């Protein structure tokens, strides 16, 4: 196992979030994860966060897993010059060394399809981020109110 860089270690200690195992993805730090509460289970949910690559190698996010949703996937909302918004699967997400990728409203988001249970404000749900190198990062995503606008609520 590749040791954590001091900065990544500091982030890990500070946020207590990632459990790391392999090189590359071992240097990914997740910050500011949040999701909105859902009303039931019939409509998809979304989760947001910032992925920071603290290492020296590029990493590629290839997929998600969570007991909350049968079909979690990274999707991207885009708004064109005419103000028309639409959403498509984002595919793999490359994070160059030293850079970060924000999953935030109106852009990339973890789309949580086929919810298995209701997302309740005040609770958290586990989310696994799968990387191309075989590594995973496990986080707990806090569920905020339905009208939350960011990680602060």
């Amino acid at each position, binding site marked *: 196992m590749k040791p954590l860089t001091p900065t990544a270690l500091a982030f890990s200690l500070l946020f207590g979030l990632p459990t790391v195992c392999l090189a590359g993805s071992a240097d990914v730090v997740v910050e500011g994860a949040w999701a909105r509460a859902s*009303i039931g289970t019939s409509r998809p949910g979304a989760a947001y966060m910032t992925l920071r690559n603290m290492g020296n190698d590029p990493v590629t996010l290839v997929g998600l897993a969570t007991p909350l949703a049968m079909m979690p996937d990274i999707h991207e909302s885009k708004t064109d010059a005419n103000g028309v918004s*639409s*959403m498509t699967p984002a595919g793999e997400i490359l994070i160059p060394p030293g850079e970060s990728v924000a999953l935030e409203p109106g852009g990339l988001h973890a789309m949580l399809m086929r919810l298995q249970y209701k997302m309740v404000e005040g609770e958290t749900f586990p989310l696994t981020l799968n990387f191309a190198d075989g590594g995973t990062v496990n986080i707990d995503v806090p569920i905020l109110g339905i009208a939350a606008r960011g990680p602060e609520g």
Partner: protein
Amino acid sequence: MRLSAFQKVLWGFATIAVIGFVWLQISVRNDQRTDDPAFHADFELTDHQGVVQTDEDFAGRWMLVFFGFANCPDVCPTTLAEVATVMDGLGPDAAHVQPFFITIDPERDTPEQLAEFVPAFDANIIGLTGTPDQIKRTSETFRIYYEKIEEAASPDGYTMGHSSQLFLFDPQGGYVGAWAYGTPAEQILSDLKGRMSI
């Protein structure tokens, strides 16, 4: 102090620029006030309680109109959350503003579906739906765009593309302007208060 010819020319340009700027500001304001609005809010749709509503039912109130669909997990909840924040920020003046969420996905968004979804953000927001024909007609009167996009990786195999601006109409139903998706609630609130002169 004596100015060189070059400095005089520069000052001349500066003066013209200032006058031009002030004139533009005044003319823009006049455009906004003495307006002949580009179009009027015009709809007859069913609200999330199953009651038929028309634009006339809301005459005398400012209207905030957003188009979307309940299966939209990102853009639509984000805008509804912004609208909820705006309504909170208006305090007692919220009584003069009626926000609407009009679905462009009438196949899925029945009044019952909207009743679950829309008021959860703010009790003041009215969800509106109708037959596919009614929604099409509404999109034409509001001059918005929407389309169904086949997408295997989406719930029910499709998603919707749609105009995502938040539209403002005055108490006479005249179009005032629109905020682009992602405009922070604080900005919308301050613009809106300016328009309402509160």
